[in-house]
């Protein structure tokens, strides 16, 4: 039986004083590739931030890798790409290399993860995201797509078991987007990595993820694509043709 990576039980959460999540219950197993979809303001990002402890839930229980979230300390097992930088300053002087290396902080105190291993990991991440040639550039000098690749590199550099990406493909050009989705699929299949992808790109999600979590303040649907395609019409929630597009691309 696959190991449970995330368990969420009866989660209620508010954002800016307004309740945006109500009685959310689901669990995610190791190796799952989840597409987290929902209309604007449905609580997707709030859900992610509650799981990661950035926001505190109103009530309910969150378990990460078998540990209650409040006691969870193994952050090196988690990679995260925020929807947008919370306090991004375009004049920030750090170079691409420096920012990518920040992803290694959670691994720093582990044996064998300093010196050479650190340098090799940075090199690998820069090459993987095709940003080695801009390593000495300041983050503010890059285009939106390049910045996004830097942040993705920071999220995956420490080879986490669980990767949570909040709308990662928004600023990427079609070619980089394909490469990026390919990289996630590789992480999922070859290393059994668990991936949660928050996205509006419903056309692509059916191609890559193996499960769909539809949220609109509560869990509307959670399961396989086959079940989703056989389920009732969701036009009201996700707009005309959305369900059809997801199912068509999945096939």
């Amino acid at each position: 039986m696959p190991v449970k990576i995330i368990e969420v039980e009866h989660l209620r959460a508010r954002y800016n004083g307004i309740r945006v999540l109500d009685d959310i219950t689901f669990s995610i197993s190791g190796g799952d590739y989840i597409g987290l979809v929902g209309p604007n303001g449905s609580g997707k990002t709030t859900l992610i931030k509650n799981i990661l402890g950035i926001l505190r839930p109103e009530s309910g229980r969150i378990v990460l890798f078998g540990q209650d979230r409040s006691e969870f300390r193994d952050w090196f097992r988690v990679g995260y790409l925020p929807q947008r930088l919370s306090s991004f300053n375009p004049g920030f002087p750090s170079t691409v290399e420096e920012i990518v290396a920040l992803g290694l902080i959670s691994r720093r105190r582990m044996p064998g993860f300093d010196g050479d291993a650190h340098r090799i990991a940075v090199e690998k991440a820069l090459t993987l995201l095709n940003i080695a040639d801009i390593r000495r550039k300041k983050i503010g000098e890059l285009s939106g797509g390049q910045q996004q690749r830097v942040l993705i590199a920071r999220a995956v550099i420490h080879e986490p078991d669980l990767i949570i990406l909040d709308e990662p493909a928004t600023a990427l050009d079609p070619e980089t987007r394909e490469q990026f989705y390919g990289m996630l699929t590789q992480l999922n299949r070859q290393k059994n990595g668990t991936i949660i992808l928050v996205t509006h790109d419903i056309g692509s999600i059916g191609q890559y993820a193996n499960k769909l979590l539809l949220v609109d303040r509560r869990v509307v649907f959670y399961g396989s694509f086959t079940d989703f395609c056989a389920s009732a019409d969701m036009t009201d929630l996700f707009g005309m043709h959305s369900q059809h597009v997801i199912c068509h691309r999945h096939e």
Partner: protein
Amino acid sequence: MGFTDYLQYGFIQRALISGVFIALLCSVLGVLIVLRRLSLIGDGLAHVTFGGVALGLALRIYPLYVTLPIVLVSSLGILKLTEKARMMGDAAIGVVSSVGIAGGVILASLAGGFNVDLFSYLFGNILAISREETILSVILSAFVLGVLLFYYDEILSITFDEEFARVSGIPTDRINKILVILTAVTVVLTMNVVGILLISALLILPAVTAFQLARGFRGSLAISALTAVASVIAGIFISIALNLPTGATIVLTNFFLFVLAFLYRFAKDRAGAQPRQQVRR
């Protein structure tokens, strides 16, 4: 009299030693403060410092001893206001700073008005710094720099992206608290160098000068430190040579270095843009 002759004097030696240490401290902390868009925290806490000095003078207690705890509490107050009262950082700084200066004015008037002592704290006089103050400046500066060095990676991560830092397992609340406390200590120490009115200049100017030239976070810290130290040393000697107020001279020297850095970057950017424009034609 040559500059080397001045070095024989104890008061010059003390001014240089404490000035260099405090400059290093301000420059490093200034980079963090400016990047976190908290540039005016120095100004806000300086106003509180004014209240503390007025209280110390009124109670006839050495002002540094009164000011340090008051500024520490105020700095944590700013943090609490932003966290609990859902107040933006600049608004919280404004509230604490106004209370500080209002309290200072009332205390100063109760104690018989603005006297020479209070004015010397407002405008600073590093040349009058005592041996004890020099030792205290060196110890506290070394301590603060040590803490900043120890938490270098964590501080860089939080400064760039606090949410990501939290998911990396960094205790962001604790580090934020430490940073605010260190800023409070720095503001109190800087009071002796440039005076209450110019504290924020020594925090902001070296940092913004560094951002004109540096590539990378480490580079910014290094250039900021170099700028601050050069400004303090040059400012002390220029003020002696031209018989000018030392604190103000240090700040204007710093501003002069900023203008040079800005012009250099401007010229460099123009030179870089030129070939591209020609190609377009």
